[in-house]
């Protein structure tokens, strides 16, 4: 059964406002109710065909609370994150629109924030962005006019003070739930909890971490975060994802910036009869370990080219504890029951 706060009159419209909430989207509601949230990421298509987005999300419909639309992830060119978000909203989904500082300066970014909010985006994730060297256009100009911290501050200023960075007023401020990423696994590891505190001070209300394949490192990071009381000031979603094979894991470790995979994880997958099944199993085991860490408010699933496994992972790990996230056909069924009840 869906929570009544999560259903609006029409699927694509903002939900009715709730006190103490900054946005009118579902993700903030799920988190503030204290549910264990599940978000997933799709890589936007290399295409102008909106049906390709529908095909990508269909395999996990009804298993996630929000869908991240990446912004030129890995510095590769894809459909823009705001356009993908608008298409997801049109279908009724709640997107997390990622904004990376690599490709736009402060003028473009602030304009995009207003445009995204106008299209119904309720969640924005502020990222620095991978360097251009990681992508298919290494000769491109890296912009990085803002960084993730100043981007957080900028959007919070637009929302809460109704002003651009220049100080010029905004007549209709963007009502968005602001998020940031953190990588607890990258050096300098001692600095990472301080950086998390800094992001919260700059306006981050939720955090999605880089892939976790090393639970003890995340546990130590969370222990420090709890020492500072950070888990009470923002919702921390741990990033997870299945590895397709030992070869894929080695490739990711060597080529995708910021992904830390211990040798033991690769050895476990390599030794299995079906590496793909074992990769999924490793992911489920990690989810079950990290949900026990105090302060982890949910998971963020990144299953690049394995979107079909997201539903299985969420189902088999049992993280939803019987809860049903929003999905299109459920709303139709609920409305049918309501109409029957009314007559």
């Amino acid at each position: 059964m869906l929570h009544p706060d999560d259903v609006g009159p029409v699927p694509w419209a903002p939900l009715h406002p709730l006190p103490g909430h900054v946005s009118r989207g579902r993700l903030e509601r799920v988190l503030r109710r204290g549910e264990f949230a599940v978000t997933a990421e799709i890589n936007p298509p290399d295409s102008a065909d909106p049906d390709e987005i529908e095909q990508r999300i269909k395999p996990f419909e009804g298993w996630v609370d929000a869908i991240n639309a990446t912004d030129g992830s890995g510095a590769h060119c894809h459909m823009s994150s705001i356009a993908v978000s608008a298409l997801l909203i049109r279908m009724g989904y709640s997107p997390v629109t990622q904004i990376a500082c690599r490709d736009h300066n402060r003028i473009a970014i602030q304009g995009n924030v207003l445009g995204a909010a106008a299209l119904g985006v309720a969640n924005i994730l502020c990222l620095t962005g991978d360097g251009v060297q990681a992508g298919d256009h290494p000769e491109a100009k890296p912009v990085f006019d803002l960084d993730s911290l100043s981007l957080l501050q900028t959007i919070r200023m637009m929302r809460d003070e109704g002003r651009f960075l220049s100080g010029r007023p905004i007549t209709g401020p963007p009502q968005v739930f602001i998020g940031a990423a953190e990588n607890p696994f990258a050096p300098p590891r001692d600095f990472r909890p301080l950086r998390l505190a800094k992001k919260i001070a700059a306006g981050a209300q939720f955090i999605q971490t880089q892939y976790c394949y090393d639970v003890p490192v995340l546990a130590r990071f969370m222990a420090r975060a709890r020492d500072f009381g950070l888990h009470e000031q923002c919702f921390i979603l741990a990033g997870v994802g299945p590895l397709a094979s030992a070869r894929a894991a080695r490739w990711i470790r060597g080529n995708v910036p910021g992904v830390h995979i211990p040798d033991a994880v690769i050895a476990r997958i390599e030794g299995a009869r079906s590496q793909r099944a074992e990769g999924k199993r490793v992911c489920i085991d990690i989810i079950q370990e990290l949900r026990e860490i105090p302060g982890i408010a949910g998971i963020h699933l990144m299953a690049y080219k394995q979107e079909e496994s997201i539903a299985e992972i969420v189902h088999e790990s049992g993280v939803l504890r019987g809860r049903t996230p929003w999905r299109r056909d459920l709303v139709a069924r609920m409305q049918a029951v309501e109409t029957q009840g009314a007559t």
Partner: protein
Amino acid sequence: MRPEDAFAHTGVARRPLPRRSLRLWSVRHARGLEAFYRRFERALRALDPLFARIGHARLERPVASVEHVVKATLFDCRMCGQCVLSATGLSCPMNCPKGLRNGPCGGVRDDGHCEVHPAMPCVWVQAYAGAERMGTVARLGTVQPPLDHRRAGRSSWLQAAQGHAAS
């Protein structure tokens, strides 16, 4: 001249590698250098009435040139005009290929090197080490505003003399 020499200095992105040893030396000696700078800054402030008599605008170019030579040698300074060295463990954040002034990105390699230039130690791994030596780790928590690109090339020392230290 051989034909290839004509192209030796073109089309090659400037990498912070050649002077990296000195920059790393500066971070290793962050504590002493910072103490020296504090005395230097006090001297600058004491001299400010004199600077004002000469005219800050007239001093801008000569001071900026000297500052550039000294700071480029010690820190690989890029003359952003908004120096935050004291708040970044004396590791100049403008050497980060992403120009990050608020801490390391998530792409730092397991060996502590840069995502973009694998041979270069991450400036923020250095900054953390420098700040630990200086006992100023808490200052890394200050959120730095985005750069004002109009100030590129201008002297930070003259601003410090007038009491407008960026960090």
